[in-house]
């Protein structure tokens, strides 16, 4: 094992050996096995399209061997690549086994070459991109940008209809007075009772209840209705207290009241 190692080392030129050692020292600087392969391929000093993948595989395996020799720990993916390249190497060197499926050694090699070429191409264009004129370094944007200010403006509007309805509302305010405020059209039983108490003394004879409606309440239907109801309720109350008597000749006939005489 060590003999072959020696033999391989001898096969490399001094400069190659120095390069390989430099690579090993620099192993931290590589961005993975593909990057390392790309660097190694440069030592072939040929166009990437013409690179010998077999030679490259050998270079890589040599590198890994060297690293092991120098007790340098390589990351797992470097070792995976090494294993794969060893496999590729055997495929390339041995005649194809017809019983075996899968891609041929040539296909695998071609793809590896493609990957290297593509990675190199990406590096080249990345460099070109970074060499371009850049904003804030070679060309510049406006130094005093004027921001767009947002102005919020509120306009008020009204239609002629709004105007006319508004005016009508004011001018007809009396008609529109809220119903709950129409107390003057309502007579309560308390009011009627107070009033009847005072008046009952004069009712010595049978008198129509409607004649007891207060003045001004007998014409307006709303007021009349309220006053009649209040008066009737008051009459019932007074009758209950024994202050007066009431009678009605027949259905819907006028209700008559008179003072109850205690003597009679």
């Amino acid at each position, binding site marked *: 094992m060590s003999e072959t190692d020696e033999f391989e080392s001898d096969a490399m030129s001094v400069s190659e050996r120095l390069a390989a050692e430099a690579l090993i020292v620099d192993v931290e600087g590589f961005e993975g096995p593909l990057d390392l392969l790309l660097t190694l391929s440069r030592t072939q000093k040929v166009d990437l399209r013409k690179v010998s993948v077999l030679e490259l595989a050998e270079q890589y395996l040599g590198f890994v061997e060297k690293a092991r020799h120098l007790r340098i720990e390589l990351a797992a993916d470097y070792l995976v690549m090494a294993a794969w390249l060893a496999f590729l190497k055997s495929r390339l060197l041995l005649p194809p086994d017809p019983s075996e499926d899968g891609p041929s050694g040539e296909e695998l090699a071609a793809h590896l070459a493609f990957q290297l070429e593509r990675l190199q191409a990406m590096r080249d264009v990345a460099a070109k991109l970074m060499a371009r004129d850049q904003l804030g370094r070679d060309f*510049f*944007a*406006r*130094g*005093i940008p*004027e*921001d*767009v*200010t*947002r*102005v*919020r*403006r*509120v*306009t*008020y*509007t*009204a*239609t*002629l*209809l*709004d*105007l*006319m*309805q*508004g*005016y*009508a*509302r*004011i*001018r*007809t*305010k009396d*008609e*529109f*007075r*809220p*119903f709950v*405020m129409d*107390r*003057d059209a309502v007579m309560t039983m308390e009011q009627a009772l107070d009033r009847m108490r005072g008046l009952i003394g004069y009712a010595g004879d049978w008198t129509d209840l409607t004649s007891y409606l207060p003045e001004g309440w007998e014409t307006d239907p709303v007021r009349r209705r309220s006053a009649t109801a209040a008066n009737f309720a008051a009459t019932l109350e007074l009758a209950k207290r024994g202050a007066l008597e009431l009678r009605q000749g027949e259905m819907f006939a006028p209700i008559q009241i008179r003072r109850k005489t205690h003597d009679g």
Partner: protein
Amino acid sequence: MTDDATQDDVTDAAITSNDSLFDAPPMGEQERMVEAILFASAEPITVKELEARMPHGSDAAEALVYLRKRYEGRGVSVVKVGDAWAIRTAPDLGYLMQKETVETRKLSRAAIETLAIIAYHQPVTRAEIEEIRGVSVSRGTIDQLIEMEWIRFGRRRMTPGRPVTFVVTQIFMDHFGLESARDLPGLKELRSAGLLESRPPPGAMPGPETDDEDESPEGQSELFED
């Protein structure tokens, strides 16, 4: 640096300026430089600062004269700010730098009623408006209508205290499509047009108004008193 510059000056003076290697760039180039520097600078920049950044021998002041002329009548202009220079938006295009959002709101009921009274009764004093509306009129309502240019001050009334009167404006007429305030329909016409019901059914009775912010409590209670 300063030493070098001084030396250059000396050299310039020594060599006939025409064929000097240190000739300032042509004026057209200097103008481009001033243009680029003014554009990119985060603050207005003085002639001295310009020249400090331009190749030796440049005349920023002269370049500025040309540049200023070039921007005359353009969308931006080269303006002097103190003793420094800057590129600014042409004043007449300032509105492009504003994004205006217009929000249309309905005039408040108090404002509409006040406006209606002024339209129907002009010239009318504030006291008269309050008498007609039955509530006090807030200052804000009048101010708003004046700001909208829908009402303006009329002649003072020749009564004690000489109160101001309010009248509606031409802008008001234009907005409401009226030839004159006399064209406003009367109550009878409003009623016959169905805009006024003589008496709403009890169910549709308007309740006490609570949404008129500018109506004072006294005004409201006044409404309820009878």
